[in-house]
């Protein structure tokens, strides 16, 4: 596997509960505070202690938006790390492991060209930090030394991680880090070609997609959020729960997902900005609610964090396999908008926009994320709030009832959207009805009325489609091959395209964030101008490519699909695409 020369991948592996994530995040922060770009990615099993948890960070002076498979430095806290990842090591990779750990069997790893660096992590941790728990901070210090990192920045990331735990913990960790650092400086004879040299760069944020969504909800003025714990969206619920008091919002964890969505619909009906978050199995329980929101024309934002199924599937892994599910879920034809942000920054802006769209069009708006997008951190330019304006749509504050004392909440309009009234408003009494209903919400089985209402609700999408952004084309418009993706494949595609260009290929990337409704009229000329196309997505059947064909009549020339629970690694994807491009041209 050829490794792009500007990127370096560090990977740590050990049992769950052993601090892999917190150590990895410290390394991510170390990189960004030196002025570098980074992308981190973790794999972990569905358990609390034990198993195998790995965390990798790909760092580069140039933008890096996805994990790279080829590992340049591996820190192994148990044998399984070596077993699982030895095959990923780049030539001349460095492998760190505990010198005193009898259970680690290096085997013939050294013979393959890897540089072995046994360091007494636990011994140094106990002597300097007072606890074997700090063994991974010793490793962090060792890593920092190998990469020539600034020790002041190293200390700063430790402070960020541990200040809230008190001076003693911080002190122990700092001493442990220095012990690892000093050990390498004095004893290691390994040379690492990639150095973290402090650069003068404007500060960038460390953000996961889930945090981007949560911040977008805060910015958008969400006043009711409900969720049921489910990987990979639980952290959105936890983040907002922690801020509910200071923000004055309702954050709830109800008894099941049915209560989650129905409660949010009630809240939205009553005038709150409401949002829910879940994954496939939880969304399965919410499906009836989608139809309810649609039929009663109640605004709602649903964050669907995808993970592999079917059923319980692979709870802690990633996929993009719920596109069709989100598009069609609930009986009959209930129009909705689907938004699939491609990175953490887009998560913030897309969430903000989704809240506006839901209230403007009074229907369910989906935010399609996944474990890969939601849980990986990357560096993000500080978010700009300047052009963001909350629009609450058509809320009638001085309604006029008819002679029977009812307000025509669902009267037909040109756009399909009718002004709504909030409970408590005099003159605005109506019935929000899950049955088919007339303009006042009174149950109606009348043929003409049914036709009017179905047309009214469907019309909303025809109105909305005009304002939804088009997909973005990254790169030269006249490239030989266009890589087409949606949602979280943005990062891997942009990185793979950069690798391919360095190899002399002519490629660009067409990335969709707004995946439904398709702006066919504006999209068709854009698609027509493309030369060869390859669709890339994280599901078995190429759901988005199928949708493109169905909605626009556009057929991609080739497809790269992957449904094994892993995201696309940029270097591996570049190799796969190289082969496919060769066949196409």
């Amino acid at each position, binding site marked *: 596997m050829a490794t792009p020369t500007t990127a370096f991948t560090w990977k740590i592996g050990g049992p769950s509960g052993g601090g892999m994530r917190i150590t990895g995040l410290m390394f991510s922060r170390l990189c960004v505070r030196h002025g570098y770009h980074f992308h981190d990615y973790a794999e972990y099993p569905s358990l609390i202690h034990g198993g195998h948890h790995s965390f990798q960070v790909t760092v580069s002076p140039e933008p890096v938006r996805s994990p790279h498979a080829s590992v340049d430095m591996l820190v192994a806290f148990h044998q399984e790390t070596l077993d699982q990842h030895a095959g990923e090591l780049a030539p001349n990779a460095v492998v760190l492991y505990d010198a005193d750990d009898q259970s680690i069997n290096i085997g013939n790893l050294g013979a393959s060209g890897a540089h072995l660096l046994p360091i007494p992590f636990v011994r140094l941790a106990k002597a300097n930090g007072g606890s074997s728990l700090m063994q991974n901070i010793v490793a962090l210090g060792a890593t920092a030394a190998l990469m020539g990192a600034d020790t002041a920045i190293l200390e700063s990331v430790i402070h960020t991680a541990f200040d809230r735990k008190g001076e003693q913990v911080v002190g122990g960790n700092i001493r442990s880090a220095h012990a690892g650092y000093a050990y390498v400086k004095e004893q290691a004879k390994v040379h690492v070609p990639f150095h973290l040299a402090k650069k003068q760069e404007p500060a960038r944020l460390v953000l996961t997609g889930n945090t981007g969504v949560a911040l977008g909800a805060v*910015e958008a003025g969400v*006043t009711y959020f409900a969720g049921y714990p489910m990987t990979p969206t639980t952290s959105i619920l936890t983040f907002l729960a922690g801020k509910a008091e200071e*923000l004055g*919002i309702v954050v709830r964890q109800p008894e099941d997902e049915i209560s989650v969505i129905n409660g949010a619909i*009630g809240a939205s009906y009553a005038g709150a900005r409401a949002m829910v978050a879940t994954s496939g199995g939880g969304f399965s329980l919410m499906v009836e609610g989608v139809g*309810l929101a649609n039929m009663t024309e109640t605004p709602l934002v649903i964050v669907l964090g995808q993970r592999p199924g079917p059923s319980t599937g692979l709870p802690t892994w990633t996929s993009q396999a719920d596109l069709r599910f989100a598009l069609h879920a609930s009986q009959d034809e209930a129009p909705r908008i689907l938004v699939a942000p491609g990175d953490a920054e887009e998560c913030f802006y897309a969430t903000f926009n989704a809240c506006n769209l839901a209230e403007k069009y009074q229907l369910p708006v989906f935010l399609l994320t996944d474990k890969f997008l939601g849980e990986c951190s990357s560096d993000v330019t500080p978010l700009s709030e300047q052009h963001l304006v909350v629009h609450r749509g058509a809320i009638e504050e001085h309604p006029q009832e008819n002679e029977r004392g*009812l307000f025509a909440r669902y009267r037909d309009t040109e756009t399909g959207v009718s002004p709504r009234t909030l409970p*408590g408003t005099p003159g*605005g009494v109506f019935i929000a009805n899950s049955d088919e209903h007339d303009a006042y*919400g009174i149950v109606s089985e009348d043929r003409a009325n049914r036709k009017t209402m179905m047309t009214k609700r469907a019309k909303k999408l025809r109105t909305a489609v005009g304002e939804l952004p088009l997909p973005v084309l990254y790169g030269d418009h006249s490239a030989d091959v266009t890589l087409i993706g949606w949602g979280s494949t943005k990062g891997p595609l942009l990185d793979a395209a950069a690798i391919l260009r360095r190899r002399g290929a002519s490629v660009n990337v067409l990335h969709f964030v707004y995946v439904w409704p398709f702006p066919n009229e504006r999209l068709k000329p854009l698609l027509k101008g493309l030369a060869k196309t390859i669709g890339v997505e994280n599901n078995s059947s190429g759901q988005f490519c199928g949708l493109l064909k169905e909605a626009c009549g556009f057929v991609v020339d080739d497809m790269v699909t992957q449904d094994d629970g892993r995201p696309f690694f940029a270097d591996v994807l570049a190799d796969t695409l190289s082969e496919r491009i060769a066949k196409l041209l």
Partner: protein
Amino acid sequence: MTTPLAAMEKFETGVAPTWCAGCGDFAVWRAMKAALVQLKREPHDTVVVYGVGCAGNMADKLRVYGFHGLHGRSLPVATGVKLVRPDLPVVALAGDGDAYGEGLNHLMHTARGNHDLSFIVHNNGVYGLTKGQAAPTTPEGTHTPTTPEGVPEHPLNPLAVALAAGATFVARAFAGDFDRLVATLVAAMQHRGFALIDILQPCVTYNHVNTYEFYRERIRAIDGRHDPTDLAAAQALAQEWEKSIPLGILYQHEDRPAFHEHLPWAKRTTMVPTAMHQRSVAGYLKDAF
């Protein structure tokens, strides 16, 4: 107390009810209107969330901000409404199949949370709108279209379940005992927290066991003869059915805070603003470097 018909008119949409002649739902409908008049409510500041079934078909007959939701799911919608507008009275209304079958989980957790709602359950011991199938409160052994060999299960005891779940107001009423029904509705809507009223309501078309006669032979009023603050006594009363059916407020406890009283603005005595409220995330980004 008799509420004048004229006073109740403002709570009518003018849509004619579709219930069978003699259905207990008529009495509940009228009692709802009378209770709202007695409580001096206006149609625009009252919210009623309905389930699906014959009971739920009251939705477009009652002139209030009504929400006709999903079968079994009136309570979750109602909790959402109440948390956003704790200043408005919120009522959830459903049949027994809806409340005690499809929606039993929500009943237990809404009671557990002491959400400030009144849950009006029309209990006719059968699924009426779908034409007579067994419901959770149908007696064991009853023959219905889906249980031709007789219902194999023991009937659910909804009052016992509600008490066990921590409900702070549990009452039973009878559609044929109008004045007590109205008084119970008024008491429920004034209660601080979750109130369940199980209304025995004959289905003249499909339930030929639990008829008006069946109930008149068994009901006995407990007001004045029972201390509603005594939980153990309430639980004992909840077990009575075969020979004697207690009618009235079995349990009432006013000292537990309602769910919304735990919310931040409840402490600041303001409620969730429903107006536009864009916020800045600048403060939270400081931690993200």
